[in-house]
Structures are given as structure tokens and as C-alpha cells.
């Protein structure tokens, strides 16, 4: 995956570029809005990581310009402003995700990978499969092997989100945002309990667990046999 990090704080940009390279991605950095725009216009990137406040041209206008020129490279906005209305502004300007600073790299990485994959168009499938687990998005039926699994509506959405991003790390905040539509941090980690409940429904009694905990990052559903 090719990434462009547009961030005026050189330390932060270097850190991100290095970290992305360590996990096997190709990453470039731009340090102001104009450079970033020029580089993004070449269209060689899979995901843009854009700081909201940049010299010469701010992040939102950069993304707006790209979109106006028909370039749909997914963009994640990094911002020190973390309020809900700022997030809405960012997404309205054409950003695809919004992460308030300070962030953890694993959170950023998980989100960037989801964005890159989104281009693949997996979203439209009506049947999701992971190993022998099968989820029908139309009839809301879930089965594992021959066994039908009955889920609460929220458990269904949780599983659906995990399966949509099968093989990718999904963080707790991402789940809270996408499954519950909450943008705040519950003091206690309620998501873990929901996951363990879901796990007991889909993995209990099967020799091959599908729902995995990724330490320090989040969760991932994948076919363990692979």
C-alpha cells in the first residue's frame, strides 16, 4: 500500500513514515498543503493521511480541491480538534475518516488499512464469509457450518462490521463509532464485553476460533486455517 502523509510537524511526519514502512507499506511525506496537494494529484497513493491544520493550504481545502478534480483517493484527517462538529466538517469536506490527536499508531494503521481496502468494493456483497462462518446481510441470518446462530440486532451489526473487514484489525473506537455511532470514550471498556459475548456465540464449541484479539490494537476476524 502506498501512503502519503501530509503533516507539517516534521517529527510526527517522520515518525509516521517510519512506522508505516516498518509494517510493510510505502510512505511519503509532505510538509505543507501545496506540496501535499501536488503529490496527491499525481494519484499514486492508496490512502492520504492529512493533518487538518497545514501551512499554505489547510487540510480540508486540500481534500476539497482533490475531490473537485475527481481524485477519490481515500483521505484520513488528523486533527487536534476532536469535537463532533469538527469531525462532521471534516467528513463533509470530503474526508473519509477522522482521527483526533493524540492518536495511537495502531489505531491509525487499522483505520488506514480499512480505508485502503474500501476501494476494493467489498461493501456491496450481501453474503459475507469467513471460514465456515456465513452472514446474510439481507435476511440477517448467521450460520456457522450447519448450525444457525441467533444474534441480537446489535451483535449482528458488530459481526457484520467485523466480517466486512475480515483479516483487518478493527479497533475499539472504530467499533464504537461504526456499530454504536458514539464518538466518545466510555470510561470502562464496554466493547470488550460485547466482543466476548459475540465470541461465545460464534466460536464456542468450534475447534477453530475465528474472532481474535490483537493485543494493544483491537480485534480481527479471520479464517484461522489460512
Amino acid at each position, binding site marked *: 500500500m502506498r501512503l502519503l502523509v501530509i503533516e507539517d510537524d516534521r517529527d510526527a511526519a517522520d515518525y509516521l513514515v517510519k512506522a508505516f514502512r516498518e509494517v510493510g507499506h510505502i510512505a511519503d511525506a509532505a510538509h505543507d498543503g501545496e506540496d501535499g496537494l501536488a503529490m496527491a494529484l499525481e494519484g499514486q497513493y492508496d490512502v492520504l493521511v492529512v493533518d487538518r491544520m497545514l501551512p499554505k493550504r489547510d487540510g480540508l481545502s486540500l481534500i476539497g480541491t482533490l475531490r473537485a478534480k475527481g481524485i477519490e483517493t481515500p483521505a484520513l484527517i488528523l486533527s487536534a480538534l476532536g469535537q463532533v462538529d469538527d469531525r*462532521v466538517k471534516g467528513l463533509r469536506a470530503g474526508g473519509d475518516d477522522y482521527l483526533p490527536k493524540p492518536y*495511537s499508531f495502531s489505531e491509525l494503521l487499522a483505520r488506514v488499512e480499512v480505508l485502503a481496502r474500501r476501494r476494493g468494493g467489498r461493501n456491496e456483497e450481501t453474503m459475507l464469509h469467513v471460514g465456515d462462518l456465513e452472514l446474510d446481510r439481507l435476511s440477517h441470518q448467521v450460520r456457522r457450518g450447519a448450525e444457525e446462530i441467533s444474534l441480537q440486532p446489535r451483535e449482528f451489526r458488530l459481526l457484520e462490521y467485523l466480517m466486512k473487514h475480515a483479516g483487518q484489525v478493527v479497533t475499539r473506537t472504530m467499533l464504537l463509532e461504526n456499530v454504536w455511532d*458514539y464518538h466518545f470514550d466510555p470510561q470502562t471498556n464496554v466493547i470488550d*464485553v460485547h466482543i466476548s459475548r459475540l465470541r461465545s456465540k460464534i466460536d464456542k464449541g468450534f475447534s477453530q476460533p475465528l474472532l481474535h484479539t490483537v493485543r494493544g490494537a483491537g480485534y480481527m476476524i479471520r479464517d484461522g486455517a489460512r
Partner: protein
Amino acid sequence: MTALGKLFRTTTFKLTLVYLTVFALFAAFLLGYFALNTRRLITEQITDTVNAEITGLSEQYRQGGIRRLVVVVDARARRPGSSLYIVTTFAGEALAGNVTALEPGILDNPGWTETVYRRLDEAEGPEHPEHQALVRVFQLPGGFRLLVGRDLDERERLYHIILGAGRWSIAIVIVLGLAGGLFVTRRVLRRVDAMTETTRTIMAGDLGERLPVAGTGDELDRLAENLNIMLERIEALMRGLKEVSDNIAHDLKTPLTRLRNRSEQALRTANSQAEYRAAIEATIEESDSLIATFNALLMIARAESGQARDDMSEFDAAEIAHDVGELYEPLAEEKGITLKVEADTAAPVKGNRELVSQALANLVDNAIKYAEPHDKPVNGVAPEIVVRALNEGDRILLTVADSGPGIPESDRTRVVERFVRLEQSRSKPGSGLGLSLASAVARLHGGELTLEDNHPGLKSVIALPRGGPVQMRDEAARQKESRR
């Protein structure tokens, strides 16, 4: 600027001048109209009398000829009064009458004329000036001419009396108006000066100062009252800001110090990679909780400053109760607590959905946290938390009732403050900001957070006005209006 110059520059004084001009013009118009009409009325009376007399005299002439006319005119002319008579031959030779010194040519033109004259019995000279008269010349058959007229002195005198009265009254209007205007202006100016003076003190930094209110309920009082309310709000915000920075200094510095100490210790004592790793992981964990505290503080500050009023919309509080209940139910169950949601009727309310959700989540989170020790049913019944959404008059209530240890009544107001954690809860994780955030959110919506006794346990109640904070403001304005 001199004191007088300042006085003349005030709005009140300028208004006084405008009104003064308007009133003076009005008085002038009224009296002028009165004077002219009086004059016209008198003139009409004169012409009527003169016409009647001429008709009478020409009747005498028709019956008794010139001789009789001369006798009658002669008799009338001798009477004192303002009537004037002359009878002349066609050549202009006077036969009878009491007038002389007429303007030449008057007698040649039949009809109405205004002229000067002198009575025959008055000698010529400065002590007997010429008078003004309105006369009619009438051509009698046979070439004789008859002049009948009336002195106009009466009319002119009346006219001048009225005009004089007009001038005086205008002068009085101006003098009284100016004096009144100056008086009012000075009074207003004094009060405005007092307000300005107070404002200066406030600007100099004494936010505790308030504008003087005279108690008359006039517009200046209302202005002062509103400014005072504004100052109250500013002072509260400033206090909040100071508190926040004090608390940040205090409560963020403690974990920061811990963070620093831990890193230093790792540098000094760690030998293996595993030890370094553990130290760094602990550091990251510590910084994450710092960030969470910081976010909560920002959220509270934002709720308290009223910024979040911009994204308010209509939503159903019952739905929020269900959502939050659903989010926490597994966590409660894991701890052996029954979490129930009782919110069957819709409770529509206008507000910030995200913030209200978070406030309720904090209350539920607290209830679960403090319902411990878990797995120990009280009196054989498992600990229970009930989340309710209720409609009550023009408010909706979101309540969280638990059967935990509760909060002693004496501590209930204190725990809502930032970072306050009771001694008993020091061991529990958390920033101590949950209740303050819930309270700030309630206040942002024009509502309140109250803590009540649930016998046993704690019942936290978020009460929100159905129409959002705007309605509350209108309400306050209406109440104020009705008091006046």
C-alpha cells in the same frame, strides 16, 4: 470635553431639541391659525353690519330723499362709536358725516376698501393719529354717494393680543423645554456616568463589581440588569476557566510526574529488553488515561461554554436510554448486576444527542462501578440498576437508579465538582470527571443533574427541558416580563 459640551452631545439632549422644535412649530401654527380666523370673523361681522346699514339708509333715501338721508346720517354720525358715515353730492361735496382725511379717490369707487381716516371731531396732530377703517361706498340714485364704514382698531388690537400671546407661549415652551431637557439629560447622564465608571472598574479587572440599578424599572435599569446578568455569566465562565486550569495543573501534573518517574526509573534500573518493554507499555497506558482525562476536561469546558448548543436536534431520550442500556448490559451482567431499561413511551427532547448519550453512559458506568462488590446479592436479590426515561411536565427525565452504597447526602453536591472522588472510591479506576460532565451537559441544555437517595443506593437524575435551552431562555424572559 467640558461638562456642558458633554451635556449637549447626549442623545437625550438632541431629542429634547427635536421635540422642542416640533412643539414650538405646532404652537406657532395653532396660534397663527387662531389669530387669522379671529380676524376673518371680525371682518365678516363688520361687512354684515355695514351692508345692513347701507340697506337701511338707502331705504330712508328712497322714502324721504336726500334731505331725510342727511338728517338720519347726521344723527347717527354724532353718536360715539366706531361707525363712520359720509354722504356727498356727485361732485364729492360732503353733505353730512363724521369722517375726514380719507385717501383721495375712495369715494369715486363704489365697493369695499380699507382706508385711513380721521374723525371730524378730532383735531389734526400727533395726539390723534389716523385710524384704519373698512368702508363701503354706495352709489345712490341721483348721483349722491353714501359711505358707511367701521373702525378696524378693535380688530387689529385683538389680532395683536393673540399674536403676542403666541410669541410668549412659544418663548415659554422653549424655556421650559430646554430646562426640562437639561434636567432629564443631566439625570440620565449622571446614571450613565455611574455605569461608565463601574464598567471601567470592571475592565480594570474587578469582575465582582456590578452596575448600579436605580430600581425604577426603566430602560436604563433593564440595561443595567441585563449587563449584570451578562457579567454574572462572564464571571462564572472566568471562574470555570480558572478552576479548569487549576485542576489541570493539579490533576494532570500528578500523572505526568508519575509518567516521568516511571520512565526515569526504567532508564536507571531496567536491564533486560523485557523490563524496558514493560516500562514503556506502562508509560503508554498512563499517557492514554491522561489523554482520556484531558478529553473529558475539554468536553466539560465545551459543554459549559455553551458551544455545543449549535448542534442540537430533536431526538428521543427513551431511545438513548435503550441504546446506552444495551451498550452496558453485557458489562453489568458480567459483574452479576441486572441492568434494566424502563423507557416504553417516547420522550422527545431537543438537545445534543451525543453529549446526552455520554452523560447517561457516565451515570450507568458509575452505577456499575460502585455497585461492587459484585456477585454478592443483597438480601438474596442480585444488585440491580434501572435506567428510565420519563416525561414529566415540560421536562424529560433520564434516571439511573442503583442499589449500591449510594452517596451520603452531605457529599452529593460536592461529588459533581470536577475531580472530586470520595475517599471510599479512591481505589476505583476513573478520572473523577464522569459526574461533572453529566452535570455540565445537563446545564448546557438548561436542565440539571440531581443525586437522590434510592433507599438503598443512588438515583441520579438528568432533567432536561423538552424544547432545549432556548425555550428556557424565553421562559426566563417571560417570567421577568410578567413580574414587571
